[in-house]
């Protein structure tokens, strides 16, 4: 009793100190939640460009919204009110809902620059009498029609039709339909009003993204939506949703698994002390992991911390292994001394396996690896040196396993037959064609599948191009990028003719380079020439001599205009928004996209861009590029894992040589340890393949973890043959408790909504279960289970039970 009281006092003090340290640390360490950290590293320029775009490109500042669930006029009203409120909010560069197409000042600007913006002006033949005459006849014909007001407004000032052509080519391909003055999704589905908004802040600015989302939701709520629902999608929403999904999962797991483990430990030890004792190395591990990740990376990713804490659940094994194997009458310090070497070997080897993740190149995996390795070592150290000081005497008494379990485990020990599963698993895995690797980058994302599908649907309805390939352009200024866009456009034009692609979008389509604008100015006819061409074209037609004065003046004015630049698009929000997606300034450099659509001849497209021989014009096949990216990352991770595995084996061999006093027994012991671990990995891969689960780098991390945990079991079960029955049972019981708690934690993870977490949970649960069984089956048969010892093994637990009761 007094031993327990002392233990409580010391444990309480230690926990208080550790808690204070943790509180201080969490004040100091910044936590981040960027999705970009979940992406693999880039190897090629194309991949780097793509990743930069995914992390913070122009497209990441887009918000797409659908409003549905109410009658159409009501939806139109809400859309108009939300659109007005968003425009007034100042968060957005552009808000499109159909209510504000081409404001008058934009129309005036575009009209003024019509001969610089339209490719018509490049061709002097368009301004000859022969070309103008049919235009004038068409104008006359049009003036008789119901469209006369529009034709009269623009036709006399622009008989070649540069301005109307421009508008048609920009607005013509819209897929939305206009109802009640705003955009609606086309089709007969229940009505859905559509809004697209582009924020001022880039996608990397999570605060601003959150503010945008709040502005949107606030505007919606202020429009008295009634039964209508707002469906808001886009990268900004995704970051928030992903962070929320991970957070919810991690919280659910930590609470549930904490309760389960606490319940299990209480049941097994009937001692609250054990719970407190387990908390000490856990806290120490968490502190060490967080601190080291902070020191190395400058911040801790929320997901790395969440996953890392589940990994550190393994640290709870150490006090259980220690306290569970204390011999009667032995001081815990003695147990620590006796088992210290095995504990150190186990923790070192597991940490070594995890450090492989440090070099994987995924920022998140690297953080996770460091967190896990540091936490394991700190937890093991706290168990080895701190716990024995805190728990003097026999404060915690190991209790035998209940019911038929000890008998079952004893019979399993050293029986070797469960190892028969290994050839079966190998055969099955071979028959299924080996483990499947997942190279779809989307599966690395914690964004729920449904959100992604709704996003794709909104994009389709808004007519946003389904980007499969793109040509990325770089330059020091906008002009350079626009010129490159024009070069790329010239290379693509023959492909459109040949049908290899259906068409393409280019920033130069909206704003030609200044060089092109100047070329168009130079090609415009002088006033006298144009006047005589016009009068010839208008011969016998009922036009007054002054009818086309606005046209003549417009051409004259065009010849003297300074070329339009991106900086002057203030009065032209529609054009600026279109251009802004294709041409952006980032960190002082400019970049642009030419986006082909309806690609049928991928090789021709690739070849056409390659023929430009310009390193700043980059062809990117997005699917191929991201798949290659993930595949490279996986291959790299595998290489490091293999290297880590070899390191672990070498370490174990060294340890066993030291412990067994010779290479030959050391090698034999190494086999006993390595076989269950390798076997567990094999079984896990086979089961995952049978479940149809495709592997990603997170599975790899989970396999490493499972291997590290399995190592504990193999090392402790493989301890030199137990000296007596009670010792053997204590050994079995301690390892069994570890396996049970690990299964409880990671079994729960398999029920997570986040695909990544579910994968890890599944992987570790299967791995740990099979590692336990295999390690037990391949463990040395102790005297306990030898045939003559049966009576004594029967007596021993019953004797203990009597003393326990």
């Amino acid at each position: 009793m007094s031993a327990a009281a002392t233990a409580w006092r010391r444990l309480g003090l230690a926990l208080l100190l550790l808690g204070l340290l943790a509180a201080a640390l969490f004040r100091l360490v910044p936590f981040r939640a960027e999705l970009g950290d979940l992406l693999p590293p880039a190897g090629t320029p194309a991949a780097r460009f793509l990743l930069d775009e995914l992390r913070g490109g122009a497209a990441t500042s887009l918000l797409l919204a659908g409003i549905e669930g109410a009658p159409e006029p009501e939806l139109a009203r809400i859309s108009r009110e939300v659109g007005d409120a968003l425009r007034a909010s100042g968060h957005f560069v552009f808000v499109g809902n159909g209510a504000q197409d081409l404001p008058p000042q934009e129309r005036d600007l575009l009209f003024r620059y019509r001969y610089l913006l339209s490719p018509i002006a490049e061709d002097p033949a368009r301004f000859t009498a022969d070309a103008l005459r049919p235009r004038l006849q068409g104008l006359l014909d049009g003036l008789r029609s119901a469209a006369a007001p529009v034709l009269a407004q623009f036709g006399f000032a622009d008989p070649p039709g540069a301005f109307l052509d421009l508008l048609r080519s920009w607005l013509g391909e819209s897929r939305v339909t206009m109802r009640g003055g705003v955009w609606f999704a086309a089709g007969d589905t229940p009505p859905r009003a559509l809004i697209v908004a582009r924020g001022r802040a880039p996608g990397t600015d999570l605060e601003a993204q959150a503010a945008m989302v709040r502005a949107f939701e606030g505007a919606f709520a202020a429009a008295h939506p009634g039964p209508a629902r707002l469906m808001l999608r886009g990268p900004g929403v995704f970051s928030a949703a992903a962070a929320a999904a991970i957070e919810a999962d991690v919280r659910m797991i930590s609470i549930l698994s904490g309760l389960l483990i606490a319940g299990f430990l209480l049941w097994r030890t009937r001692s609250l002390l054990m719970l407190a004792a387990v908390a000490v190395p856990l806290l120490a591990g968490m502190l060490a992991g967080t601190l080291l990740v902070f020191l190395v990376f400058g911040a801790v990713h929320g997901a790395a911390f969440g996953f890392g804490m589940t990994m550190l659940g393994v640290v709870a094994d150490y006090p259980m292994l220690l306290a569970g194997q204390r011999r009667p009458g032995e001081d815990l310090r003695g147990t620590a001394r006796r088992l210290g070497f095995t504990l150190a070997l186990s923790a070192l080897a597991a940490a070594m396996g995890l450090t492989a993740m440090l070099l994987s190149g995924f920022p998140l995996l690297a953080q996770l690896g460091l967190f896990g390795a540091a936490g394991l070592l700190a937890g093991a150290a706290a168990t080895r040196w701190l716990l024995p000081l805190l728990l003097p005497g026999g404060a915690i008494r190991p209790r035998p396993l209940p019911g038929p379990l000890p008998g079952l485990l004893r019979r399993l020990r050293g029986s070797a037959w469960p190892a028969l599963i290994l050839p079966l698993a190998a055969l099955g895995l071979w028959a299924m064609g080996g483990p499947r690797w997942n190279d779809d980058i989307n599966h690395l994302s914690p964004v729920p599948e449904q959100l992604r599908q709704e996003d794709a649907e909104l994009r389709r309805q808004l007519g946003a191009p389904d980007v499969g390939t793109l040509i990325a352009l770089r330059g020091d200024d906008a002009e350079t990028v626009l010129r490159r866009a024009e070069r790329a456009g010239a290379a693509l034009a023959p492909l459109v003719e040949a049908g290899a692609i259906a068409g393409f979008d280019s920033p130069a389509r909206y704003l030609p380079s200044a060089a092109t604008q100047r070329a168009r100015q130079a090609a415009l006819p002088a006033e006298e020439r144009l006047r005589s061409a016009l009068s010839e074209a208008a011969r016998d037609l009922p036009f007054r001599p002054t009818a086309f004065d606005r046209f003549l003046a417009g051409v004259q004015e065009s010849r003297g205009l300074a070329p339009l630049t991106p900086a002057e698009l203030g009065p032209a929000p529609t054009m600026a928004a279109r251009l802004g997606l294709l041409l952006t300034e980032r960190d002082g450099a400019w970049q642009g996209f030419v986006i082909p659509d309806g690609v049928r001849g991928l090789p021709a497209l690739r070849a056409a861009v390659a023929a430009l021989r310009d390193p700043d014009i980059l062809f990117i096949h997005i699917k191929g590029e991201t798949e290659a990216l993930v595949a490279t990352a996986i291959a790299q991770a595998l290489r490091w894992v293999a290297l880590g595995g070899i390191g672990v084996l070498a370490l174990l061999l060294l340890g066993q040589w030291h412990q067994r006093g010779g290479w030959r027994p050391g090698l034999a012991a190494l086999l006993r340890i390595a076989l269950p671990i390798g076997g567990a990995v094999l079984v896990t891969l086979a089961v995952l393949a049978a479940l149809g689960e495709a592997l990603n780098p997170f599975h790899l991390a989970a396999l490493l973890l499972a291997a590290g945990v399995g190592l504990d079991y193999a090392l402790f079960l493989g301890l030199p043959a137990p000296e007596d029955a009670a010792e053997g049972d204590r050994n079995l019981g301690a390892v069994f408790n570890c396996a049970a708690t690990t299964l409880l934690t990671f079994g729960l993870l398999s029920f997570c909504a986040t695909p990544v977490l579910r994968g890890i949970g599944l992987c570790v649960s299967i791995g740990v279960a099979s590692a336990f069984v295999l390690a037990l089956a391949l463990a040395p048969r102790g005297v306990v289970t030898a045939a003559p010892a049966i009576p004594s093994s029967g007596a021993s637990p019953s004797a203990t039970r009597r003393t326990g009761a």
Partner: protein
Amino acid sequence: MTHRRALIALALACLAPPALAQPAPTLDSVMAALAARRQGHARFTETREFPELSMPLPSSGTLSWAAPDRLEKHTTEPVEEILRIEGDRLVFARPAQNIRRELGLDEQPELRPLVESIRATLAGDLPTLQRHYEVRFAAQPDGGWRIDLTPRSMRVYAALQSVAISGRGDAVLSVVTRGNQGETRMTIQPEP
């Protein structure tokens, strides 16, 4: 033009005596009469004048109206053209050129006011008319009436300055539209 208008006035004056028997029309009585008429057919002739053209452009065809909101203008001369408005949709077709366009009345801000100047008048729908226009009514000495519409929106006004509709009883007889691009006069002869 003035002497033609004088001629019409003269012709109308000859027809005046029977009309005198009725009380002078008011805006409400005209609207009620128009609203009571569920359908109608008419022939029309139209001339458009533009400051840039040295002569007016004539055209002609038929009009048909079916309450509450269907209006079709079928131009037969000189080029066939169909303009049909039903509900919130507008269909514009020129078969000879294989042109057919369908658009919503709200796709362009000027479109709905322009359409409602005629349609809401035919429907006798004064509130709609007043939503888009300042409405002035004048009873003519010959027993006919005249409604002058001035757009309320500055944006619409920039394109369309006034619409003058005149008629007698429940029949619209002429529509004169004056925009900054020119003037359109439509004369309507109701058919039974």
